[in-house]
C-alpha cells in the first residue's frame, strides 16, 4: 500500500514536470536567461507547487504524524552552514550549464535520449563523489 503511494507520488510528480514544461532543458535555460529573452514559466511551476504544498505542510506539522500514525521525517529548517551555500552555488552553475536539475533529468530518461543518460550517469557520479569520497575525507579530517 505504502509502496503504491510512493509510486503514484513519483508518477504524479513526473507528469507534473512534463506538463509544466520543465523536462525541456531549453525552457529551463530560458528561465535562467533573465538578462536575455526571459521565459518566466518556471516561476509559475513553483508557485503552483507551493500553493498546494504550503497547506499540506501546515496541516501535517500541526498533526505531527502521518495518516498511518507514523512519525514524520522532516529536516531542520534554520541551520545555515558553508556547505549549504557552496553546494547550492555549485548546483546552480551545473543547472545553468545543461538546463537539468535532478527530477526533470530522471523523468527525461524515459524519452530514451543518450544525452540525458550521459547527464544522469555524471550526476550519479557527482552524488557518489560527494557522499563517498568528499564527505569521508572531510569526516576523517574532522576527527583529528
Amino acid at each position: 500500500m505504502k509502496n503504491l503511494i510512493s509510486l503514484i507520488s513519483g508518477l504524479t510528480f513526473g507528469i507534473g514536470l512534463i506538463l509544466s514544461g520543465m523536462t525541456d532543458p531549453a525552457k529551463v535555460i530560458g528561465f535562467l536567461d533573465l538578462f536575455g529573452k526571459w521565459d518566466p514559466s518556471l516561476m509559475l511551476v513553483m508557485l503552483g507547487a507551493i500553493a498546494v504544498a504550503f497547506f499540506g505542510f501546515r496541516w501535517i506539522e500541526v498533526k505531527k504524524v502521518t495518516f498511518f500514525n507514523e512519525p514524520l521525517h522532516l529536516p531542520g529548517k534554520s541551520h545555515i552552514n558553508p556547505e549549504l551555500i557552496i553546494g547550492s552555488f555549485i548546483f546552480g552553475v551545473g543547472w545553468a550549464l545543461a538546463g537539468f536539475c535532478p527530477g526533470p533529468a530522471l523523468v527525461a530518461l524515459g524519452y530514451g535520449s543518450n544525452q540525458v543518460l550521459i547527464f544522469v550517469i555524471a550526476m550519479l557520479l557527482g552524488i557518489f563523489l560527494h557522499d563517498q569520497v568528499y564527505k569521508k575525507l572531510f569526516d576523517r579530517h574532522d576527527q583529528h
Partner: protein
Amino acid sequence: MQIQWEVFTPIHSFFGGTLIGLATVLLLFFKGRIAGISGILGALMQSHHTPADHYQWRAFFIMGLLLSSFIYSIFAVLPRFTIQANWLMLILAGLLVGFGTRMGSGCTSGHGICGLSRLSTRSFVATLIFMSAGVIACFIFLHLIGI
C-alpha cells in the same frame, strides 16, 4: 530583461506545478517524507542500511518518475525537448548538479518546493543562491562566452 511571450506557458506550468504540489503532499501525508529528488537519490546510493524501508519507498518513488513519461505518452504527445549542451558540458553539468545538491542538502524540489512551502530559512537561502548562481552562470555562458 525582455519576456519571451511566445514560449511562456503560464497555464500549463501552473497546472503542472499543482500536480507536483499534490505529489509532494501525497508523500508527506502517507510517508511523512520530503519529496526531494537529490536526497532520495543520495539515500538510495548509500550502502549499510538494513531496514528494507530505507530503500523501498525511495525506489518506488524513483520508479514512478522514470515511468511518468511513458504514462504521459499514452494520453498525450510528449512536449518539445531540446538539449543545447554538448556531451562535455553534459558531463560537467551532471557532476556539478550531483555534487552540489548533495553538498547543499537539496535541489529545486527539496529546497525550492518543499523547503519554501515550510517557510524554512535554510531552504530560502539555498533557493536564492542556486537561482542566482544559475542566472549569473547562464549570463556568462550565453552572453559572454557564447556557448
